[in-house]
């Protein structure tokens, strides 16, 4: 099946001027994207991860026709990004620049209806969709207030709502939970999941690993303009080949401990006892596979479990392992 988004060897270079005093300047080349290739399947939630300045937004800007690539090709929903610009734009709902993409002197309703017009919706469709979006985002009470009176979170939610106005098959969301508080971010992720279940393909950029882990089917980790790792989240974690440690506390008789020892996935078990409870630290190559077997072996042999703490390998660990840096580091070169 044809992928919903196909990117082939996409490169993008800028030529910013470096100022050398008042009158002199020097043009330098900055390679923001270096031969990026990827495919995103229809109905997938695809995460683009990377630190600030990694090239995520440049990639999105190329895909949404805001920037022309220096070389390479890309197709969205079957349309070529350079030859069929308007078709690509119609096929994509995009949240970029967050709250800055709104007219602050207009109301939420006026903003939505204006952008609806730019997507060629008829006046009645504009009104209907704006109403649906306002309802979806629970903004009924503030919909007729000018955006300048909103909190940052409300502005971000409206910017997200704006990306839905054309009901596009592909949604591209650039750091959509920036400036949102925890409940609002959770609500937005829930909506993203719901839209995905309704059939939309979603490209989601973030530098927050937990967000990518809970939301994305597959991710590409971008650094210095290159895709350094790509795959399903569990696969990427697995690829580290790191031992997993699961800590278990409770009343654990000797036969239960022995049963754990006999599990083929277990490479090592450490035991510590205090105040009548035992703490087992179980080392294995794959904690996720082991966990149900571990619980079964313990409970079948009379153990009373009080606490289970699997030590998680995160996507941040994958990034650190590949680059030697953390995701919070800024890698901007422009």
């Amino acid at each position, binding site marked *: 099946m044809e992928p919903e988004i196909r990117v082939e060897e996409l490169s993008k270079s*800028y*030529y*910013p001027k470096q100022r050398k005093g008042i009158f002199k300047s020097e043009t330098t080349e900055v390679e923001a994207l270096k031969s990026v290739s990827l495919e995103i399947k*229809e*109905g997938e939630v695809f995460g683009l991860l990377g630190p600030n300045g990694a090239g995520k937004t440049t990639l999105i*800007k190329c895909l*949404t*026709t*805001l*920037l*022309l690539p*220096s070389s390479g090709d890309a197709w969205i*929903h079957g349309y070529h990004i350079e030859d069929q*610009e*308007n*078709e690509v*734009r*119609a*096929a*994509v709902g*995009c949240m*970029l*620049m967050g709250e*800055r*993409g*709104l*007219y*602050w*002197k*207009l109301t939420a309703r*006026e903003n939505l*209806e*204006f*952008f609806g*017009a*730019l*997507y*060629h919706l*008829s*006046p009645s469709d504009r009104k209907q*969709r704006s109403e*649906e*979006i306002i309802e*979806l985002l629970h903004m009924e009470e503030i919909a007729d207030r*000018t955006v300048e009176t909103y909190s940052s979170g409300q502005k971000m939610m409206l910017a997200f709502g*704006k990306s*839905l106005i*054309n*009901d*596009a*098959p592909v949604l591209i969301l650039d750091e959509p939970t920036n400036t949102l508080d925890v409940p609002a971010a959770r609500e937005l992720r829930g909506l993203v999941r*719901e*839209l995905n*279940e*309704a*059939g*939309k393909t979603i490209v989601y950029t973030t530098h927050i690993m937990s967000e990518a882990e809970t939301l994305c089917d597959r991710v590409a980790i971008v650094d210095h303009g290159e895709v350094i790792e790509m795959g399903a989240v569990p696969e990427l974690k697995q690829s580290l080949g790191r031992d997993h440690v699961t800590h278990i506390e409770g009343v654990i008789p000797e036969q239960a401990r022995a049963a754990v020892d006999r599990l083929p996935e277990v490479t090592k078990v450490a035991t510590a006892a205090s105040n009548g409870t035992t703490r087992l630290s179980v080392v294995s190559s794959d904690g996720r596979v082991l966990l149900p077997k571990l619980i079964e072996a313990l409970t079948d042999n009379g153990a009373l479990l009080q606490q289970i703490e699997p030590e998680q390998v995160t996507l941040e660990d994958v990034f650190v392992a590949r680059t030697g840096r953390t995701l919070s580091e800024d890698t901007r070169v422009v």
Partner: protein
Amino acid sequence: MSLWPEPAARCQKTQGWFELRGKPSLRSKLSIVVATAKMRLSLVSRYKGQLFIEMLIPIVFASIPIMLGRATGGDAAAANFESNTGTSDYVAYMLIGSVTFMIVSYAFWLVGYWIRFEQETGTLEAIYLTPTSRFWNAAGISLYSAIRSILFGTLSYFVGALIFGINPFRGALLLAGMFILVGLVPLFGMTLLFGALIMKVREANSLVNMMQWGVSLLMGVFFPILVFPPLMRTLALAFPPTWMVNGVRSSLLGVGYFFNEWYLDLAVLWAFMLIAPLLGYAVFRRVERGIKRNEGVGQY
């Protein structure tokens, strides 16, 4: 079609706009023009005080040469003026020049500055993400500029006439309106060229300020272009607002058309109308593409 399908419809492939409705019709494109103009009128309606002040500016602007003329011209001021311009009513002459200049100036600020305005508010990329040709956006901004400037220009003219004690209903008002309407189209084309320059150099304020002085000089806001040296006169005649202001003055005050007949002067504006917007848009597109090749339209 509902925005969010019912659960039974989920997992079916959603469709893009073009698949659902085909290519946008002319009606849909014209709807964008109206929506853009309406949006900008809504925006400016939130600054009511500014609108009131703007209406007064042409009157104040015209007052300076009128008072100067009264102070320095003496008893023979009107006769001297008539020998050079074709009308003894220098007050109406200045007021018409000032109001027409306001309309031209609005075009430079509102249409030429449009891209920069969107860049500064942060909404330019949001507009570029939509499947709308910039031509229709620019047409919407031009419509907004036309509505705002004609409305306030007309108000200014009548209030100014009341203040200076002249008859605002003399002459062929409809023909004067025709010169303004026809003249606006090539003017908007020129301002698109100017907008392209602003996109390129990313400096709007000083460019618009400089252009305003140049424009007011070339179009002959307070004097006939016949007083220019030959080279400057030729340059002024290649400039649509010069024909616009002379057309309005000739219709209302009878100062004389450049080609003696109103329809010939109007034909020149029609010719400008056919060339200037296409040329302006072509240059604009070229500059826009160059910018997209480099750092993108949102950068400033």
